[in-house]
Structures are given as structure tokens and as C-alpha cells.
């Protein structure tokens, strides 16, 4: 059988911001850059902030990384026709996240997603899907962020991770203060505490 082959991936390189976040590269070109408003003004549910850093195999922050996020709304529905449900007007569920070029720290604001349907009638614990690209990453890395205040014990993906201590690499920790709710989530590309990455 003849099928086409997928075009090979190549690194996004150090200047990914020119194309995907030009203001961060230092210039203003598009009327509206994509991916800055994940939830929109009408989304129900708990407003949260997620902050973290991506580290390389030496433990240094990766300052030129870009992340994309993909999540369901608080009812567990994705803004996509194959979900089969409507979501709040303006809820997109997708975001682009870049770092502070000096520190490598990043953060984004959204709403906490609800549990979603998994395969074969299972329920997936609330999670945010992440895709990570940078100079030195040849094929974008997929992973998931779960929440430490949710019941993750029956999540079909976490439970696939054979080394149970590695499941912790996908779980963000909740902090509350006067400014609101922040989840902290660091990603380790390589080495001690290496994040579990997914071949989806």
C-alpha cells in the first residue's frame, strides 16, 4: 500500500518567537497574536495560574523554549467538533507560552479543566496537554500536567507509567495566596527527575 510519509520534524530553533510570538522577539507585526487568551472571559470554573521552568540535562533553565497548551473546559469538553459538546463562547483551550529570556521562567493563566472521557469508558483526571519545542529538540515533546489536589488514582495514563515514582513528574503543586491560585510545574528534559514524555 502506498501511503504518504509524515514530513519530518525539525527543531523550532532559537528564534521561534519571530514566527509564533513576534512581540517577544522585539517587534509588532500582527494585529492579534495567537494563543494569549486560553480560557476567554466567559469560561466557568476556577481561574488558575500555572508557573514553572523547563530544565536541561545539566539542570540549567532552557530560556528559549516554547510551550503550547491544550485543555478541556471545566466541564471536561474540548473546543473541537469531535468532542460533540459546546463550550463557553470565547473558550479556546489552547495557549502559547514563552519564557522570560533572562530567567527561563514561564507562566500562563487559564481555568482548571474538568475530567475528560478516556478510552473505553474510562475517565481521565483533569489535565492540561503540553507540547514543548526549542532549539536542540528535534521532535516536539508531548507531556501532560495533572493537579495535586485532584484524585489522580484512576487516571489511565498516569497508571501506565511503570515506575510509580515517575508519575509525580506530571503532577503540579497547588499554592494559594492573596493573588489567587497558582500551580507550580517544572519540566526536566533529561536526567534526574526526568519528566515522563508521551508518544501520542
Amino acid at each position, binding site marked *: 500500500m502506498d*501511503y*504518504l*510519509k*509524515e*514530513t*519530518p*520534524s*525539525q*527543531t*523550532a*530553533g*532559537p*528564534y*521561534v*518567537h*519571530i*514566527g*509564533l510570538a*513576534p512581540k517577544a*522577539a*522585539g517587534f509588532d*507585526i*500582527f*494585529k492579534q497574536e*495567537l494563543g494569549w487568551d486560553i480560557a476567554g472571559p466567559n469560561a466557568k470554573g476556577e481561574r488558575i495560574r500555572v508557573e514553572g521552568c523547563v530544565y536541561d*540535562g*545539566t539542570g540549567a533553565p532552557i530560556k528559549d523554549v516554547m510551550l503550547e497548551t*491544550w485543555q478541556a473546559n471545566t466541564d471536561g469538553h*474540548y473546543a*473541537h467538533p469531535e*468532542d460533540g459538546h459546546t463550550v463557553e463562547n470565547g473558550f*479556546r*483551550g*489552547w495557549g502559547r507560552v514563552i519564557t522570560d*529570556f533572562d530567567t527561563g521562567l514561564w507562566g500562563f493563566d487559564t481555568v482548571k479543566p474538568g475530567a*475528560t*472521557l*478516556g*478510552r473505553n469508558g474510562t475517565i*481521565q483526571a483533569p489535565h492540561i496537554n503540553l507540547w514543548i*519545542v*526549542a*532549539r*536542540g*529538540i*528535534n*521532535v*516536539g515533546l508531548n507531556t*501532560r500536567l495533572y493537579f495535586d489536589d485532584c484524585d489522580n488514582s484512576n487516571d489511565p*495514563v498516569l497508571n*501506565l507509567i511503570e515506575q510509580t515514582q515517575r508519575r509525580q513528574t506530571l503532577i503540579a503543586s497547588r499554592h494559594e495566596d492573596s493573588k489567587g491560585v497558582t500551580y507550580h510545574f517544572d519540566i526536566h*528534559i*533529561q*536526567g534526574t527527575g*526526568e519528566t*515522563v*514524555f*508521551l*508518544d*501520542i
Partner: protein
Amino acid sequence: MKPAEYYMRDRAHHAPALTPDYKTSVTRSPQYALLSLENSLSEITGPVFSHNDIEALDNDLIKNYSHGGDPIGERIIVHGRVLDENSRPVPNTMVEIWQANAGGRYRHKKDTYLAPIDPNFGGCGRTMTDADGYYYFRTVKPGAYPWRNWVNNWRPAHIHVSVFGAAFAQRLITQLYFEGDPLIAKCPIVQTVPDAEAIDQMVAKLDINATIPLDSIAYRFDIVLRGRRSTLFENRLEGN
């Protein structure tokens, strides 16, 4: 009909994570195996875009950052189709590009190459494919530029290309090279891809019939995203 899975990504067709000749990959490559997942709703869905997200000039890099003139360089058209592995068009999907100017300099605060910034060239564009998966951009051909890897490495002329498809599982960033460029064979980033036919998929071909006489030369670049199974028998992907 229930949605079906996307075909497994053929990792042998892509670069491995660790490619020591591309030095930056050494500390940015996972050491443990990826955890292979069967698709759930989280993977077969993905962001949806519309023409409301973009503007008419966004795909014209000769005009979209014009400050009173056109950018310096060889005027080119880059066009093609976004298809899936089943040869089906991928309609209404966002395609974004970014590139250096004709001198090989990026408009980025972290690029310090001595070639000058072009005041009329931003270096990024975006468009949506039409119902047949077709897209096109107008731009100037980017220049080759040196980069720090070995002492003397030069990137072949290239345009970065980002494509979404219909699902988060199809998300792809690649690079477009130009037919006949002798730097392709010498580039440690291109050569991370282990297969010559796979590399050839990233090489845009001169398309003389699509050139605009006395105006712009054209290159054809088709992009292939992952395809998906047809649902012959219920596989209960969604549950219920």
C-alpha cells in the same frame, strides 16, 4: 461514526532526540523512552482557527512589515498543499512561517549576526489552508547564515514552518529548504533526519510554472501530517 486513532508516528522517519553532531540536542534530549499512548479525546482534538484570527496581508512577507518600501532580496512564492498520510487534504488549518532576511539575519533581539536588519522585512507570516489544503506565501528568499556548533557551520537557506492539522497529535514544526542548496548536505540540523528520502521531503522544489514572469520565482512545498484510521469496527475510542 466514531473518530478513530491517528496512525502511529513513524519515529524512524524523524530525527532521534539525541543527535550529537547537533550539539544542543545532547542536553535537551530525554534519556528515557517515551510512553506510548493510544489516542484519547485529548489527542484527537486540537485548536481550531478561523479567518477571524488572521488578516489579509499576513501571508505576504514582502508587504506585511513594509515601512515605505519592499524588502531586499530574491522575490519568491512558496506554495503547496497540506495533506495527511492518506493523501487527503487538510483544510482550514493554520500554517505559520518565520525566516531570516535575504542577508541571513533574523529580526530577533537575541540574533547578533553582523548582516543587517532589513527595515522592510519582519520575517513572519501565517495563512489558513483552503478547502483543498492549499496555501501560499510571498516572501524573499532567506540567506544562509553561520551558527555556533562546530567552529564553521552554516545553515542552508531555510524557512521554519509550523502546522496544526485537526488534532494535537498532528502538531508539527519543520523547516523548508531550497532545491539545489549545497549546504543541505553539510548541515548537522538537516542531517539529524536519518533518511535521505525523508530529507528530500523538506526540500522545496523549483516550480517554474507557478512563477510570475518578470516578478517572482516559485517553490513548491507540500506538507504531510499524520493520517488516521477509518473506523471499520467500533473501537470505543470515546467511551460511553
